[in-house]
Protein backbone atom coordinates (compact mmCIF):
# COMPACT_ATOMS: atom_id res chain seq x y z
CA UNK A 1 0.00 0.00 0.00
CA UNK A 2 1.25 3.46 -0.88
CA UNK A 3 1.98 5.59 2.18
CA UNK A 4 -0.23 8.38 0.86
CA UNK A 5 -3.10 5.87 0.99
CA UNK A 6 -2.54 5.30 4.70
CA UNK A 7 -4.48 7.64 6.96
CA UNK A 8 -3.24 8.58 10.42
CA UNK A 9 -5.43 10.58 12.80
CA UNK A 10 -3.68 12.33 15.69
CA UNK A 11 -5.95 13.15 18.64
CA UNK A 12 -4.51 15.40 21.33
CA UNK A 13 -5.74 18.54 23.06
CA UNK A 14 -2.25 20.08 22.89
CA UNK A 15 -1.72 21.96 19.63
CA UNK A 16 2.04 21.48 19.72
CA UNK A 17 1.68 17.70 19.97
CA UNK A 18 -0.83 17.59 17.14
CA UNK A 19 1.36 19.75 14.94
CA UNK A 20 4.62 17.99 15.64
CA UNK A 21 3.25 14.48 15.22
CA UNK A 22 1.34 15.46 12.08
CA UNK A 23 4.49 16.96 10.62
CA UNK A 24 6.52 13.89 11.55
CA UNK A 25 4.13 11.56 9.72
CA UNK A 26 3.62 13.88 6.76
CA UNK A 27 7.36 13.85 6.14
CA UNK A 28 7.00 10.09 5.87
CA UNK A 29 4.33 10.58 3.21
CA UNK A 30 1.30 9.50 5.24
CA UNK A 31 -2.08 11.21 4.93
CA UNK A 32 -2.42 12.91 8.32
CA UNK A 33 -5.14 14.86 10.08
CA UNK A 34 -5.56 15.84 13.67
CA UNK A 35 -8.37 16.41 16.14
CA UNK A 36 -8.24 18.48 19.31
CA UNK A 37 -10.83 16.41 21.17
CA UNK A 38 -12.70 13.11 21.09
CA UNK A 39 -15.87 14.54 19.55
CA UNK A 40 -13.97 15.93 16.54
CA UNK A 41 -12.04 12.68 16.28
CA UNK A 42 -15.28 10.67 16.09
CA UNK A 43 -16.62 12.94 13.35
CA UNK A 44 -13.39 12.54 11.38
CA UNK A 45 -13.45 8.81 11.98
CA UNK A 46 -16.90 8.58 10.41
CA UNK A 47 -15.69 10.57 7.41
CA UNK A 48 -12.72 8.08 7.26
CA UNK A 49 -11.11 5.89 6.16
CA UNK A 50 -8.29 5.73 8.73
CA UNK A 51 -5.68 3.10 9.38
CA UNK A 52 -4.15 4.36 12.60
CA UNK A 53 -5.09 6.69 15.42
CA UNK A 54 -2.73 8.13 17.99
CA UNK A 55 -4.84 9.11 20.96
CA UNK A 56 -3.81 11.05 24.04
CA UNK A 57 -5.28 9.55 27.20
CA UNK A 58 -5.71 12.79 29.09
CA UNK A 59 -8.08 15.10 27.30
CA UNK A 60 -10.83 17.39 28.59
CA UNK A 61 -14.32 15.94 28.11
CA UNK A 62 -14.21 12.43 26.76
CA UNK A 63 -10.81 10.95 27.61
CA UNK A 64 -8.67 8.74 25.39
CA UNK A 65 -9.84 5.46 26.93
CA UNK A 66 -13.50 6.29 26.33
CA UNK A 67 -12.67 7.42 22.80
CA UNK A 68 -10.84 4.13 22.28
CA UNK A 69 -13.96 2.23 23.41
CA UNK A 70 -16.14 4.20 20.98
CA UNK A 71 -13.71 3.65 18.12
CA UNK A 72 -13.63 -0.09 18.74
CA UNK A 73 -17.45 -0.17 18.77
CA UNK A 74 -17.51 1.62 15.43
CA UNK A 75 -14.79 -0.21 13.52
CA UNK A 76 -12.17 -2.91 13.76
CA UNK A 77 -10.29 -1.41 10.83
CA UNK A 78 -8.34 1.19 12.79
CA UNK A 79 -5.36 0.46 15.02
CA UNK A 80 -5.16 2.74 18.03
CA UNK A 81 -1.96 3.71 19.82
CA UNK A 82 -2.54 5.45 23.13
CA UNK A 83 -0.24 8.26 24.22
CA UNK A 84 0.21 8.94 27.90
CA UNK A 85 2.33 11.42 29.81
CA UNK A 86 2.93 9.12 32.76
CA UNK A 87 2.90 5.43 32.13
CA UNK A 88 1.20 3.51 34.87
CA UNK A 89 0.45 -0.18 34.74
CA UNK A 90 -3.24 0.58 35.30
CA UNK A 91 -3.55 2.90 32.32
CA UNK A 92 -1.56 0.60 30.08
CA UNK A 93 -3.57 -2.47 31.04
CA UNK A 94 -6.83 -0.57 30.64
CA UNK A 95 -5.86 0.70 27.19
CA UNK A 96 -4.75 -2.74 26.02
CA UNK A 97 -7.88 -4.37 27.43
CA UNK A 98 -9.99 -1.94 25.49
CA UNK A 99 -8.28 -2.98 22.29
CA UNK A 100 -5.41 -0.50 21.90
CA UNK A 101 -2.54 -1.82 19.78
CA UNK A 102 -0.03 -0.42 22.27
CA UNK A 103 0.74 2.65 24.34
CA UNK A 104 3.62 5.11 24.32
CA UNK A 105 4.81 7.67 26.82
CA UNK A 106 5.60 11.29 26.10
CA UNK A 107 8.12 12.32 24.99
CA UNK A 108 8.43 9.56 22.44
CA UNK A 109 11.68 8.15 21.20
CA UNK A 110 11.55 8.78 17.43
CA UNK A 111 12.95 5.38 16.63
CA UNK A 112 10.39 3.72 18.91
CA UNK A 113 7.57 5.75 17.35
CA UNK A 114 8.53 4.77 13.79
CA UNK A 115 8.91 1.15 14.79
CA UNK A 116 5.58 1.01 16.61
CA UNK A 117 3.68 2.75 13.83
CA UNK A 118 5.09 0.33 11.27
CA UNK A 119 4.15 -2.63 13.46
CA UNK A 120 0.62 -1.30 14.08
CA UNK A 121 0.04 -0.66 10.38
CA UNK A 122 1.42 -4.08 9.48
CA UNK A 123 -0.89 -5.76 11.97
CA UNK A 124 -3.82 -3.71 10.74
CA UNK A 125 -3.05 -4.76 7.19
CA UNK A 126 -3.08 -8.40 8.31
CA UNK A 127 -6.45 -7.88 10.03
CA UNK A 128 -7.86 -6.36 6.85
CA UNK A 129 -6.40 -9.11 4.70
CA UNK A 130 -7.82 -11.68 7.07
CA UNK A 131 -11.30 -10.18 6.83
CA UNK A 132 -11.02 -10.03 3.04
CA UNK A 133 -9.92 -13.67 2.89
CA UNK A 134 -12.77 -14.73 5.17
CA UNK A 135 -15.19 -12.96 2.86
CA UNK A 136 -13.57 -14.60 -0.15
CA UNK A 137 -13.69 -18.04 1.49
CA UNK A 138 -17.31 -17.58 2.46
CA UNK A 139 -18.06 -16.63 -1.14
CA UNK A 140 -16.29 -19.72 -2.43
CA UNK A 141 -17.53 -22.13 0.22
CA UNK A 142 -20.49 -24.24 -0.79
CA UNK A 143 -23.71 -22.97 0.69
CA UNK A 144 -24.88 -26.55 1.17
CA UNK A 145 -26.13 -28.65 -1.69
CA UNK A 146 -29.59 -27.17 -1.95
CA UNK A 147 -30.75 -27.74 -5.49
CA UNK A 148 -34.10 -26.61 -6.73
CA UNK A 149 -35.65 -24.13 -9.09
CA UNK A 150 -39.26 -25.01 -8.36
CA UNK A 151 -41.37 -22.21 -6.89
CA UNK A 152 -41.60 -24.24 -3.65
CA UNK A 153 -37.83 -24.35 -3.20
CA UNK A 154 -37.38 -20.76 -4.33
CA UNK A 155 -39.75 -19.78 -1.54
CA UNK A 156 -37.70 -21.83 0.93
CA UNK A 157 -34.49 -20.09 -0.18
CA UNK A 158 -36.13 -16.70 0.16
CA UNK A 159 -37.06 -17.56 3.73
CA UNK A 160 -33.53 -18.82 4.41
CA UNK A 161 -31.98 -15.57 3.19
CA UNK A 162 -34.42 -13.35 5.03
CA UNK A 163 -34.08 -15.10 8.39
CA UNK A 164 -30.36 -15.99 8.27
CA UNK A 165 -28.98 -12.58 9.36
CA UNK A 166 -31.22 -12.50 12.45
CA UNK A 167 -30.92 -14.48 15.67
CA UNK A 168 -34.47 -15.82 15.43
CA UNK A 169 -35.09 -19.41 16.48
CA UNK A 170 -36.05 -21.47 13.45
CA UNK A 171 -38.11 -24.64 13.10
CA UNK A 172 -37.54 -26.61 9.91
CA UNK A 173 -40.30 -29.07 9.19
CA UNK A 174 -40.49 -31.65 6.50
CA UNK A 175 -40.53 -35.33 5.77
CA UNK A 176 -37.47 -37.45 6.29
CA UNK A 177 -34.92 -36.91 3.54
CA UNK A 178 -36.14 -33.49 2.42
CA UNK A 179 -32.85 -31.80 3.39
CA UNK A 180 -33.60 -30.20 6.76
CA UNK A 181 -29.97 -30.29 7.87
CA UNK A 182 -28.82 -28.77 4.57
CA UNK A 183 -31.23 -25.89 5.09
CA UNK A 184 -29.98 -25.45 8.67
CA UNK A 185 -26.40 -25.31 7.36
CA UNK A 186 -27.40 -22.84 4.65
CA UNK A 187 -28.95 -20.57 7.29
CA UNK A 188 -25.83 -20.81 9.44
CA UNK A 189 -23.55 -20.14 6.46
CA UNK A 190 -25.48 -16.99 5.58
CA UNK A 191 -25.62 -15.73 9.16
CA UNK A 192 -23.17 -13.47 11.05
CA UNK A 193 -22.31 -16.57 13.11
CA UNK A 194 -20.80 -18.30 10.08
CA UNK A 195 -17.24 -18.15 11.43
CA UNK A 196 -18.27 -20.08 14.52
CA UNK A 197 -19.36 -23.71 14.49
CA UNK A 198 -22.74 -25.17 13.69
CA UNK A 199 -23.15 -28.04 16.13
CA UNK A 200 -25.68 -30.74 15.29
CA UNK A 201 -27.40 -32.83 17.94
CA UNK A 202 -29.40 -35.78 16.69
CA UNK A 203 -31.92 -35.84 19.50
CA UNK A 204 -33.68 -38.92 18.22
CA UNK A 205 -30.63 -41.14 18.33
CA UNK A 206 -29.94 -41.01 22.06
CA UNK A 207 -31.28 -42.20 25.35
CA UNK A 208 -32.39 -39.65 27.96
CA UNK A 209 -29.17 -39.69 30.00
CA UNK A 210 -26.91 -39.82 26.99
CA UNK A 211 -28.69 -36.86 25.39
CA UNK A 212 -28.40 -34.83 28.58
CA UNK A 213 -24.66 -35.45 28.72
CA UNK A 214 -24.35 -34.84 24.98
CA UNK A 215 -26.12 -31.49 25.26
CA UNK A 216 -24.66 -30.12 28.48
CA UNK A 217 -21.41 -32.05 28.88
CA UNK A 218 -20.32 -33.57 32.15
CA UNK A 219 -17.85 -33.14 34.95
CA UNK A 220 -15.25 -35.75 35.78
CA UNK A 221 -16.83 -38.52 37.85
CA UNK A 222 -20.40 -37.43 37.04
CA UNK A 223 -21.21 -41.02 36.20
CA UNK A 224 -19.44 -44.31 35.66
CA UNK A 225 -17.02 -43.89 32.81
CA UNK A 226 -16.89 -40.10 33.02
CA UNK A 227 -13.13 -39.98 33.53
CA UNK A 228 -12.67 -36.49 32.15
CA UNK A 229 -14.63 -33.29 32.04
CA UNK A 230 -16.32 -33.09 28.64
CA UNK A 231 -17.88 -30.08 26.97
CA UNK A 232 -21.41 -30.53 25.72
CA UNK A 233 -22.81 -29.53 22.33
CA UNK A 234 -24.46 -26.43 23.82
CA UNK A 235 -21.07 -25.21 25.05
CA UNK A 236 -19.34 -26.11 21.79
CA UNK A 237 -21.91 -24.05 19.88
CA UNK A 238 -20.81 -20.86 21.68
CA UNK A 239 -20.84 -18.05 19.12
CA UNK A 240 -22.42 -20.28 16.50
CA UNK A 241 -25.55 -22.32 15.85
CA UNK A 242 -27.03 -25.27 17.73
CA UNK A 243 -28.97 -27.50 15.35
CA UNK A 244 -31.38 -29.78 17.21
CA UNK A 245 -32.43 -32.44 14.73
CA UNK A 246 -35.49 -34.56 15.50
CA UNK A 247 -36.42 -32.34 18.43
CA UNK A 248 -39.80 -34.10 18.58
CA UNK A 249 -38.08 -37.18 20.01
CA UNK A 250 -36.69 -35.56 23.19
CA UNK A 251 -37.91 -36.90 26.55
CA UNK A 252 -39.86 -34.61 28.90
CA UNK A 253 -37.04 -33.99 31.40
CA UNK A 254 -34.53 -32.98 28.72
CA UNK A 255 -37.22 -30.81 27.13
CA UNK A 256 -37.39 -28.83 30.39
CA UNK A 257 -33.57 -28.46 30.57
CA UNK A 258 -33.47 -27.49 26.94
CA UNK A 259 -36.16 -24.84 27.39
CA UNK A 260 -34.18 -23.34 30.27
CA UNK A 261 -30.90 -23.20 28.35
CA UNK A 262 -32.55 -21.74 25.25
CA UNK A 263 -34.09 -18.99 27.36
CA UNK A 264 -31.17 -18.19 29.69
CA UNK A 265 -28.19 -19.32 27.56
CA UNK A 266 -26.81 -20.71 30.81
CA UNK A 267 -26.52 -24.27 32.11
CA UNK A 268 -24.51 -26.53 34.35
CA UNK A 269 -22.66 -29.59 33.17
CA UNK A 270 -23.95 -32.97 34.36
CA UNK A 271 -22.51 -33.54 37.82
CA UNK A 272 -21.33 -29.94 38.10
CA UNK A 273 -22.36 -26.77 39.87
CA UNK A 274 -20.52 -24.16 37.81
CA UNK A 275 -22.81 -22.06 35.64
CA UNK A 276 -21.58 -22.08 32.05
CA UNK A 277 -22.67 -19.43 29.56
CA UNK A 278 -22.99 -20.02 25.84
CA UNK A 279 -24.16 -17.66 23.12
CA UNK A 280 -25.83 -19.71 20.40
CA UNK A 281 -28.64 -19.57 17.90
CA UNK A 282 -31.15 -22.40 17.82
CA UNK A 283 -32.36 -24.15 14.70
CA UNK A 284 -34.63 -27.15 15.21
CA UNK A 285 -35.95 -29.74 12.83
CA UNK A 286 -38.62 -32.36 13.03
CA UNK A 287 -40.70 -34.62 10.81
CA UNK A 288 -43.18 -35.19 13.63
CA UNK A 289 -46.58 -33.64 14.12
CA UNK A 290 -45.56 -31.49 17.09
CA UNK A 291 -49.06 -30.05 17.52
CA UNK A 292 -50.40 -33.53 18.06
CA UNK A 293 -47.51 -34.31 20.40
CA UNK A 294 -48.41 -31.23 22.46
CA UNK A 295 -52.06 -32.30 22.59
CA UNK A 296 -51.05 -35.81 23.60
CA UNK A 297 -48.78 -34.38 26.30
CA UNK A 298 -45.54 -35.83 24.95
CA UNK A 299 -44.11 -32.41 23.99
CA UNK A 300 -44.05 -29.40 26.33
CA UNK A 301 -46.27 -26.59 25.17
CA UNK A 302 -43.86 -23.88 26.42
CA UNK A 303 -40.95 -25.44 24.51
CA UNK A 304 -43.21 -25.79 21.45
CA UNK A 305 -43.89 -22.05 21.44
CA UNK A 306 -40.24 -21.25 22.21
CA UNK A 307 -38.89 -23.15 19.19
CA UNK A 308 -41.76 -22.61 16.79
CA UNK A 309 -40.93 -18.95 16.15
CA UNK A 310 -40.07 -19.00 12.45
CA UNK A 311 -41.16 -22.05 10.50
CA UNK A 312 -39.68 -23.25 7.26
CA UNK A 313 -41.69 -26.06 5.65
CA UNK A 314 -39.71 -28.21 3.24
CA UNK A 315 -41.86 -29.68 0.49
CA UNK A 316 -41.59 -33.41 -0.22
CA UNK A 317 -39.86 -34.26 -3.47
CA UNK A 318 -43.13 -35.48 -5.02
CA UNK A 319 -44.49 -31.99 -4.34
CA UNK A 320 -41.77 -30.42 -6.50
CA UNK A 321 -41.34 -32.84 -9.36
CA UNK A 322 -39.88 -30.08 -11.49
CA UNK A 323 -36.66 -30.33 -9.45
CA UNK A 324 -36.18 -34.09 -9.95
CA UNK A 325 -34.25 -33.85 -13.22
CA UNK A 326 -31.89 -31.16 -11.91
CA UNK A 327 -31.30 -33.06 -8.68
CA UNK A 328 -30.72 -36.30 -10.58
CA UNK A 329 -28.09 -34.65 -12.80
CA UNK A 330 -26.47 -33.03 -9.77
CA UNK A 331 -26.09 -36.40 -8.01
CA UNK A 332 -24.95 -38.04 -11.23
CA UNK A 333 -22.13 -35.51 -11.60
CA UNK A 334 -21.26 -35.80 -7.91
CA UNK A 335 -20.89 -39.60 -8.02
CA UNK A 336 -19.27 -39.57 -11.46
CA UNK A 337 -16.51 -37.42 -9.91
CA UNK A 338 -16.28 -39.57 -6.79
CA UNK A 339 -16.25 -42.86 -8.70
CA UNK A 340 -14.24 -41.47 -11.61
CA UNK A 341 -16.82 -42.76 -14.13
CA UNK A 342 -17.63 -41.21 -17.49
CA UNK A 343 -21.42 -41.30 -17.16
CA UNK A 344 -23.07 -38.58 -19.21
CA UNK A 345 -26.74 -38.77 -18.28
CA UNK A 346 -29.98 -40.70 -18.18
CA UNK A 347 -31.87 -42.51 -20.93
CA UNK A 348 -35.34 -41.04 -21.59
CA UNK A 349 -36.91 -44.13 -19.94
CA UNK A 350 -34.79 -43.71 -16.82
CA UNK A 351 -35.67 -40.02 -16.56
CA UNK A 352 -39.36 -40.83 -17.02
CA UNK A 353 -39.13 -43.38 -14.22
CA UNK A 354 -37.40 -40.86 -11.98
CA UNK A 355 -40.09 -38.27 -12.67
CA UNK A 356 -42.94 -40.69 -12.03
CA UNK A 357 -41.61 -42.29 -8.86
CA UNK A 358 -43.18 -40.94 -5.67
CA UNK A 359 -39.96 -40.75 -3.63
CA UNK A 360 -41.29 -41.47 -0.17
CA UNK A 361 -37.69 -41.14 1.06
CA UNK A 362 -37.44 -37.79 -0.74
CA UNK A 363 -34.09 -36.35 -1.87
CA UNK A 364 -32.14 -38.82 0.23
CA UNK A 365 -33.84 -41.71 -1.57
CA UNK A 366 -33.15 -40.06 -4.93
CA UNK A 367 -29.48 -39.62 -4.07
CA UNK A 368 -29.19 -43.23 -2.94
CA UNK A 369 -30.92 -44.41 -6.10
CA UNK A 370 -28.49 -42.45 -8.31
CA UNK A 371 -25.48 -43.64 -6.30
CA UNK A 372 -26.52 -47.27 -6.67
CA UNK A 373 -27.26 -46.78 -10.38
CA UNK A 374 -23.80 -45.28 -10.81
CA UNK A 375 -22.26 -48.35 -9.21
CA UNK A 376 -24.01 -50.84 -11.49
CA UNK A 377 -23.94 -48.96 -14.78
CA UNK A 378 -21.21 -49.99 -17.23
CA UNK A 379 -22.03 -47.65 -20.07
CA UNK A 380 -22.12 -43.90 -20.32
CA UNK A 381 -25.87 -43.58 -19.60
CA UNK A 382 -28.02 -44.61 -16.68
CA UNK A 383 -30.94 -46.71 -17.83
CA UNK A 384 -34.17 -47.40 -15.96
CA UNK A 385 -32.93 -50.91 -15.12
CA UNK A 386 -30.09 -49.43 -13.14
CA UNK A 387 -32.47 -47.58 -10.86
CA UNK A 388 -33.44 -49.38 -7.66
CA UNK A 389 -36.88 -47.83 -7.40
CA UNK A 390 -39.24 -49.39 -4.87
CA UNK A 391 -42.42 -49.14 -6.95
CA UNK A 392 -42.35 -51.66 -9.81
CA UNK A 393 -41.42 -49.89 -12.96
CA UNK A 394 -43.93 -52.07 -14.74
CA UNK A 395 -46.55 -49.60 -13.61
CA UNK A 396 -44.88 -46.89 -15.58
CA UNK A 397 -44.97 -48.73 -18.86
CA UNK A 398 -47.94 -50.98 -18.42
CA UNK A 399 -51.57 -50.28 -17.62
CA UNK A 400 -52.75 -47.82 -20.18
CA UNK A 401 -56.44 -48.45 -19.63
CA UNK A 402 -58.63 -45.84 -17.99
CA UNK A 403 -58.92 -48.09 -14.92
CA UNK A 404 -55.12 -48.42 -14.65
CA UNK A 405 -54.72 -44.66 -14.84
CA UNK A 406 -57.47 -44.10 -12.24
CA UNK A 407 -55.85 -46.69 -9.99
CA UNK A 408 -52.48 -44.94 -10.11
CA UNK A 409 -53.95 -41.48 -9.80
CA UNK A 410 -56.03 -42.28 -6.70
CA UNK A 411 -53.05 -44.00 -5.09
CA UNK A 412 -50.87 -40.94 -5.74
CA UNK A 413 -53.43 -38.46 -4.37
CA UNK A 414 -53.88 -40.57 -1.23
CA UNK A 415 -50.11 -40.69 -0.71
CA UNK A 416 -49.74 -36.95 -1.27
CA UNK A 417 -52.38 -36.34 1.37
CA UNK A 418 -50.94 -38.83 3.84
CA UNK A 419 -53.95 -41.06 3.32
CA UNK A 420 -56.34 -38.46 4.68
CA UNK A 421 -59.48 -39.68 2.94
CA UNK A 422 -61.53 -36.49 3.31
CA UNK A 423 -58.75 -34.34 1.91
CA UNK A 424 -58.02 -36.79 -0.92
CA UNK A 425 -61.72 -36.96 -1.81
CA UNK A 426 -61.83 -33.19 -1.98
CA UNK A 427 -58.79 -33.14 -4.27
CA UNK A 428 -60.35 -35.80 -6.51
CA UNK A 429 -63.68 -33.99 -6.38
CA UNK A 430 -65.58 -37.13 -5.36
CA UNK A 431 -67.32 -37.92 -2.08
CA UNK A 432 -65.64 -39.94 0.67
CA UNK A 433 -67.88 -42.99 0.20
CA UNK A 434 -66.93 -43.20 -3.47
CA UNK A 435 -63.29 -42.94 -2.55
CA UNK A 436 -63.63 -45.77 -0.01
CA UNK A 437 -65.19 -47.90 -2.75
CA UNK A 438 -62.31 -47.12 -5.13
CA UNK A 439 -59.74 -47.95 -2.43
CA UNK A 440 -61.44 -51.29 -1.89
CA UNK A 441 -61.82 -51.90 -5.62
CA UNK A 442 -58.12 -51.37 -6.39
CA UNK A 443 -56.93 -53.00 -3.19
CA UNK A 444 -55.04 -49.89 -2.17
CA UNK A 445 -53.21 -50.04 1.15
CA UNK A 446 -51.30 -47.44 3.07
CA UNK A 447 -47.54 -48.06 3.01
CA UNK A 448 -46.03 -48.65 6.41
Amino acid sequence: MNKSDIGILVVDDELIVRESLSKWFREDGYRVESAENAATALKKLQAGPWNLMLVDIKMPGMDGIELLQRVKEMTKDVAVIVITAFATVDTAVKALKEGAFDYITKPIDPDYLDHMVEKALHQQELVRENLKLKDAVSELAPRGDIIGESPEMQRVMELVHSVAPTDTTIMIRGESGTGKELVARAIHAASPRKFFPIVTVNCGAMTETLLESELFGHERGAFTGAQYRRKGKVELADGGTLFLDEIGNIDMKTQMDLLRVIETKQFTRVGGTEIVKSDFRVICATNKDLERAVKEGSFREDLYYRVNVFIIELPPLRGRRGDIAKLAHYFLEKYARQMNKQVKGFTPEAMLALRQHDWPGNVRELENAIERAMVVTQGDMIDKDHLPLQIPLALVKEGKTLEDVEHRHIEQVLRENSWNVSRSAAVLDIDRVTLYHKIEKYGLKREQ
Partner: protein
Amino acid sequence: MTPVHILPLGGARLELLERVIPSVEQKIHRSTLLREIDFDTEQFYDDERSQYNSTKILLHLRQRYAGAGENDDARAIAVVPFDLYIPILTYVFGEAEVNGRVAVVSSYRLAPERYGLAPDANLFQSRFLKEILHELGHVFGLLHCISQECVMHSSSYVEEIDLKGDGYCESCAGIFEGNS
Protein backbone atom coordinates in the same frame (compact mmCIF):
# COMPACT_ATOMS: atom_id res chain seq x y z
CA MET B 1 19.06 31.53 -8.64
CA THR B 2 19.08 32.75 -5.04
CA PRO B 3 21.79 31.04 -2.96
CA VAL B 4 20.77 28.94 0.00
CA HIS B 5 21.76 30.60 3.25
CA ILE B 6 23.71 28.51 5.72
CA LEU B 7 23.55 29.94 9.23
CA PRO B 8 25.96 28.70 11.91
CA LEU B 9 24.24 29.34 15.27
CA GLY B 10 25.16 28.79 18.92
CA GLY B 11 28.85 28.26 18.24
CA ALA B 12 28.59 25.81 15.33
CA ARG B 13 31.98 24.77 13.94
CA LEU B 14 32.72 26.80 10.82
CA GLU B 15 35.59 24.63 9.59
CA LEU B 16 33.25 21.61 9.51
CA LEU B 17 30.71 23.59 7.52
CA GLU B 18 33.34 24.76 5.07
CA ARG B 19 34.31 21.14 4.42
CA VAL B 20 30.78 20.01 3.57
CA ILE B 21 29.52 23.08 1.67
CA PRO B 22 31.04 22.11 -1.73
CA SER B 23 29.24 18.74 -1.58
CA VAL B 24 25.99 20.43 -0.55
CA GLU B 25 26.19 22.84 -3.48
CA GLN B 26 26.93 20.02 -5.88
CA LYS B 27 23.95 17.93 -4.72
CA ILE B 28 21.37 20.71 -4.66
CA HIS B 29 22.66 22.41 -7.83
CA ARG B 30 22.75 25.76 -6.06
CA SER B 31 25.31 28.03 -4.54
CA THR B 32 25.28 28.68 -0.81
CA LEU B 33 25.95 31.70 1.31
CA LEU B 34 27.55 31.16 4.70
CA ARG B 35 26.10 33.88 6.89
CA GLU B 36 26.70 34.71 10.51
CA ILE B 37 23.59 36.35 11.90
CA ASP B 38 22.64 37.81 15.24
CA PHE B 39 20.32 35.17 16.64
CA ASP B 40 19.97 34.31 20.34
CA THR B 41 19.44 30.56 20.63
CA GLU B 42 19.45 30.50 24.45
CA GLN B 43 15.79 31.58 24.55
CA PHE B 44 14.89 28.17 23.10
CA TYR B 45 16.67 26.20 25.78
CA ASP B 46 14.45 24.00 27.98
CA ASP B 47 15.84 23.60 31.49
CA GLU B 48 13.84 20.47 32.23
CA ARG B 49 14.97 18.64 29.13
CA SER B 50 18.40 20.28 28.76
CA GLN B 51 17.67 20.52 25.04
CA TYR B 52 16.75 23.22 22.55
CA ASN B 53 13.27 23.42 21.05
CA SER B 54 13.79 23.09 17.30
CA THR B 55 10.20 24.00 16.46
CA LYS B 56 10.58 27.37 18.17
CA ILE B 57 13.92 27.96 16.45
CA LEU B 58 12.24 27.30 13.11
CA LEU B 59 9.39 29.65 13.97
CA HIS B 60 11.78 32.50 14.69
CA LEU B 61 13.88 31.81 11.66
CA ARG B 62 10.82 31.79 9.46
CA GLN B 63 9.73 35.16 10.77
CA ARG B 64 13.15 36.41 9.91
CA TYR B 65 13.05 34.96 6.42
CA ALA B 66 9.50 35.94 5.55
CA GLY B 67 9.87 39.43 4.25
CA ALA B 68 11.98 40.95 7.01
CA GLY B 69 14.48 42.40 4.61
CA GLU B 70 15.61 39.06 3.19
CA ASN B 71 15.08 37.98 -0.40
CA ASP B 72 11.55 36.67 -0.92
CA ASP B 73 12.70 33.33 -2.22
CA ALA B 74 15.68 32.89 0.11
CA ARG B 75 15.90 29.58 1.88
CA ALA B 76 18.02 29.03 4.95
CA ILE B 77 19.35 26.19 7.03
CA ALA B 78 20.62 26.83 10.53
CA VAL B 79 23.34 24.59 11.92
CA VAL B 80 23.67 24.11 15.67
CA PRO B 81 26.04 22.13 17.90
CA PHE B 82 23.47 21.42 20.64
CA ASP B 83 20.77 18.81 21.12
CA LEU B 84 17.36 19.51 19.56
CA TYR B 85 13.89 18.28 20.45
CA ILE B 86 10.31 18.71 19.45
CA PRO B 87 7.89 18.45 22.38
CA ILE B 88 6.45 15.01 21.62
CA LEU B 89 9.78 13.39 20.75
CA THR B 90 12.84 12.75 22.87
CA TYR B 91 15.17 14.25 20.25
CA VAL B 92 15.49 15.11 16.58
CA PHE B 93 18.54 15.35 14.33
CA GLY B 94 16.90 18.29 12.61
CA GLU B 95 13.64 19.85 11.59
CA ALA B 96 12.44 21.60 8.47
CA GLU B 97 9.44 23.28 6.96
CA VAL B 98 8.34 20.99 4.18
CA ASN B 99 8.25 23.07 1.00
CA GLY B 100 9.00 26.12 3.12
CA ARG B 101 11.85 28.48 3.86
CA VAL B 102 13.84 27.22 6.81
CA ALA B 103 15.41 24.20 8.47
CA VAL B 104 17.67 23.47 11.38
CA VAL B 105 20.23 20.67 11.79
CA SER B 106 22.08 19.57 14.91
CA SER B 107 25.51 17.95 14.91
CA TYR B 108 25.12 16.97 18.57
CA ARG B 109 24.13 13.32 18.13
CA LEU B 110 26.27 12.69 15.06
CA ALA B 111 29.68 12.25 16.70
CA PRO B 112 30.66 8.58 17.30
CA GLU B 113 32.14 9.50 20.70
CA ARG B 114 28.59 10.41 21.82
CA TYR B 115 27.94 6.65 21.77
CA GLY B 116 31.15 5.65 23.52
CA LEU B 117 33.03 4.95 20.28
CA ALA B 118 36.36 6.27 19.06
CA PRO B 119 36.23 9.66 17.31
CA ASP B 120 35.93 9.38 13.56
CA ALA B 121 36.10 12.73 11.76
CA ASN B 122 35.17 11.28 8.38
CA LEU B 123 32.12 9.48 9.72
CA PHE B 124 31.03 12.55 11.62
CA GLN B 125 31.41 14.75 8.53
CA SER B 126 29.54 12.24 6.37
CA ARG B 127 26.61 12.16 8.81
CA PHE B 128 26.60 15.95 9.02
CA LEU B 129 26.47 16.30 5.25
CA LYS B 130 23.65 13.77 4.96
CA GLU B 131 21.55 15.55 7.59
CA ILE B 132 22.01 18.95 5.94
CA LEU B 133 20.99 17.45 2.58
CA HIS B 134 18.05 15.67 4.20
CA GLU B 135 16.59 18.79 5.85
CA LEU B 136 17.23 20.91 2.74
CA GLY B 137 15.36 18.29 0.74
CA HIS B 138 12.33 18.88 2.98
CA VAL B 139 12.64 22.65 2.51
CA PHE B 140 12.52 22.10 -1.23
CA GLY B 141 9.38 19.97 -0.84
CA LEU B 142 10.70 16.41 -0.63
CA LEU B 143 9.13 13.84 1.72
CA HIS B 144 10.85 10.74 3.07
CA CYS B 145 11.95 8.40 0.32
CA ILE B 146 11.50 4.63 0.33
CA SER B 147 14.86 4.12 -1.39
CA GLN B 148 17.39 2.92 1.19
CA GLU B 149 20.14 4.64 -0.79
CA CYS B 150 18.53 8.06 -0.93
CA VAL B 151 19.53 10.72 1.55
CA MET B 152 15.81 11.48 1.98
CA HIS B 153 15.27 8.04 3.52
CA SER B 154 14.00 8.48 7.06
CA SER B 155 16.55 7.99 9.84
CA SER B 156 15.54 8.04 13.45
CA TYR B 157 18.79 6.70 14.87
CA VAL B 158 22.33 7.42 13.91
CA GLU B 159 23.16 4.04 12.40
CA GLU B 160 20.34 4.58 9.93
CA ILE B 161 22.09 7.72 8.72
CA ASP B 162 25.17 5.61 8.01
CA LEU B 163 23.15 3.11 5.99
CA LYS B 164 21.83 5.58 3.47
CA GLY B 165 23.79 7.31 0.73
CA ASP B 166 24.94 10.93 0.66
CA GLY B 167 22.97 11.91 -2.42
CA TYR B 168 19.40 12.12 -3.68
CA CYS B 169 17.92 9.29 -5.70
CA GLU B 170 16.99 10.05 -9.30
CA SER B 171 13.39 10.76 -8.37
CA CYS B 172 14.21 13.10 -5.47
CA ALA B 173 17.05 14.85 -7.35
CA GLY B 174 14.48 16.09 -9.83
CA ILE B 175 13.21 18.64 -7.35
CA PHE B 176 16.47 20.63 -7.61
CA GLU B 177 16.37 20.88 -11.37
CA GLY B 178 13.85 23.77 -11.34
CA ASN B 179 14.82 27.42 -11.14
CA SER B 180 13.42 28.27 -7.73
